[in-house]
């Protein structure tokens, strides 16, 4: 059966030919290499200037909220990987934390330290990926190769921990499944010792680069009001003059025990966002050094617990399951039927590399969440393009999309 070509023509495409004015409608994406996945933009142009922008999303919609309603809580964990697949552990973590808050669970300290390591490694991976792709979009091929090389080291470290490179599923509700391997800390230290020089290399290539500055400075300026009104979070908000970092303001895990700064800028343009990503990498490295110390202290103090002890919700350690009958029974029930959190609702926000990643869970006491809403930062960072792009020129579109750092697994969910 042959495909009938005309049937595939989108039904709105013929409208534009009847226009009387000089406006040109340009269709950007969804397969444009710099559309970061599946973004489709309908741009109304006067000459080269954009007068109206209409982002069209949904090309990667998989209905995760629907899937969540039909999955037991632990089953949903690998699905969260597919949201922001550049930093998947941060999604795992957001979901795990939401469920832990719902059932009121305290995670052992060693697990917290490992989680913080994973989160910050993910933040570094995400920021390096952002730098690489944005630089590539603007034409800086060297930075792309440099940043991907560093990201590769981090992926190797993560692979050594959980076996996966992109979709980690490295965090469980109630803790972490594994302790870190022997040479994990060593590898991490080697990487962190090199990182400042690497970041300096990128900055040497970009900070005074004429093309980079032309595409970045005074382009895509977001005012504070606009950023707040559009629900911008993370680097997008911090570049617009609000020093709001959930790790600092509403600390989770052990973020209140580590020293780090929250870089922010009141410029609001592409260059400010670029600077913030670079500074955040330095801060992440700072946090990672401190988590290494924390981990070593845990080891010295003999804190070996990796999962919370809550037989109603969390399976016992593998050794107990294999040796004790009751643990085995309880594990069987938790795997086949799933845990049943109490009746209630919770909204938990965490600072993912892209911004505020929130999980709203409404539980009715059953093994399936009654309603689960994923608050993905990129969704609004895409929406803001409606107001941000008008007035800019076509070449600016690519650099603006680049610095918004949107990932479509997260926008469409």
């Amino acid at each position, binding site marked *: 059966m042959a495909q009938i070509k005309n049937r595939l023509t989108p039904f709105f495409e013929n409208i534009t030919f009847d226009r009387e004015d000089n406006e040109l409608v340009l269709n950007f994406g969804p397969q444009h290499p710099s559309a970061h996945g599946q973004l489709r933009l309908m741009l109304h142009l006067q000459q080269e200037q954009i007068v109206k922008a209409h982002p069209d999303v949904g090309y990667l919609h998989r209905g995760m909220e629907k899937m969540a309603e039909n999955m037991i809580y632990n089953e949903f964990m690998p699905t969260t990987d597919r949201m922001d697949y550049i930093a998947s552990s941060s999604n795992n973590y957001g979901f795990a934390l939401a469920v832990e808050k719902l059932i009121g669970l305290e995670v052992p300290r060693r697990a917290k330290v490992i989680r913080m390591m994973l989160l910050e490694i993910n933040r570094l991976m995400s920021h390096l990926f952002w730098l690489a792709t944005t630089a590539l979009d603007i034409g800086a091929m060297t930075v792309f190769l440099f940043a991907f090389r560093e990201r590769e080291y981090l992926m190797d470290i993560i692979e050594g921990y959980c076996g996966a490179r992109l979709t980690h599923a490295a965090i469980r509700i109630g803790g972490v499944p594994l302790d870190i391997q022997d040479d994990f800390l060593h590898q991490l230290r080697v990487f962190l010792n090199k990182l400042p020089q690497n970041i300096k290399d990128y900055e040497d290539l970009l900070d005074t680069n004429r093309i980079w500055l032309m595409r970045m400075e005074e382009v895509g300026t977001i005012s504070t009001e606009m950023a707040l009104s559009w629900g911008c979070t993370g680097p997008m908000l911090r570049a617009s003059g609000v020093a709001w970092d959930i790790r600092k303001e509403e600390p989770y895990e052990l973020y209140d025990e580590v020293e780090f700064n929250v870089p922010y800028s009141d410029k609001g343009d592409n260059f400010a966002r670029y600077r913030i990503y670079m500074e955040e990498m330095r801060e992440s490295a700072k946090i990672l050094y401190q988590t290494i110390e924390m981990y070593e202290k845990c080891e010295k103090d003999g804190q070996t617990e990796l999962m919370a002890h809550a037989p109603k919700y969390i399976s016992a350690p593998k050794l107990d399951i294999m040796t004790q009958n009751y643990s085995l029974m309880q594990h069987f029930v938790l795997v086949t039927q799933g845990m049943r959190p109490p009746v209630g609702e*919770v909204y938990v926000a965490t600072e993912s590399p892209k911004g505020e990643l929130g999980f709203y869970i409404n539980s009715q006491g059953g093994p399936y969440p009654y309603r689960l809403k994923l608050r993905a930062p990129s969704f609004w960072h895409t929406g803001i393009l409606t107001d941000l792009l008008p007035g800019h020129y076509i070449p600016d579109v690519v650099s603006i999309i680049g610095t918004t750092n949107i990932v479509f697994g997260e926008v469409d969910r």
Partner: protein
Amino acid sequence: MRAYTPKDDVQAKAYYTDRYYVAPQVPKSEVETDEVFAADLEAIKAKFEVKEAYIQVEQMVVYINAHDIYGVLEFMRDELAYTQLSEMSAIDWLAKDNTFEIFYQMLSMEKRKRIRVKYFIENGQAVDSVEKLFRSADWSEREMFDMFGIEANNHPFMKRILMPYDWQGYPLLKTYPLEGDEFAAWYEVDKIYGKEARDIIGPEIRDTATVDRYDSERFARLGFEVPKGTKITGNEEPHVDSYQEDGGIFLIKKYDKESSVVIDDPQR
């Protein structure tokens, strides 16, 4: 007597629940226990009717009347410094009492507090758009319309956002099956090949776990491939995969003690 289960909820259900199981509650505390929330609630109560308010998991939940929502959010933004609408959406309670519950997740960066404003609407009732207050509501209200069919009055562009514009049905309703309804099964066939091809192609298989070993069009017969489109009658002998026996299973090497190695280094 058997417990009543709503027939129009087609989501996954627990297949076994103890008869005497009483689900525990996530603890709620009085608003008075938190100074900031208590002051905020007093301020809201002075101007609007508040039906219920409590604190759950460090956040205040406030139930108001549906027609007050624009006023309440405007008041919260301008007077109480709740400057950001993080999230808003609906919860489907149609099976229970034919209502939707709408929630707005508000954030005050000044006070480091979060409030959830909620209200109920009847099925078919529209909500008031808050897009004029928070631009982020533009997209979230569209998403709510897309997923639940709840329209927002005074919204500038009330169109679907994630699903195609010509989609029928609202995916997040409890009455909507996970793998999609009849419309979903024919959507792409109609779109790409035309309605006249329905008999030839058949409905789309939307259950991703389906494996049909008599289907020679898809890759369901790994290791036993036949030319594409071959008719398989179903009378063939059932094939039993043997594990590590002679002949071996497809893609898995036969275990041989002589040529095997023991890996000591996990990082190999």
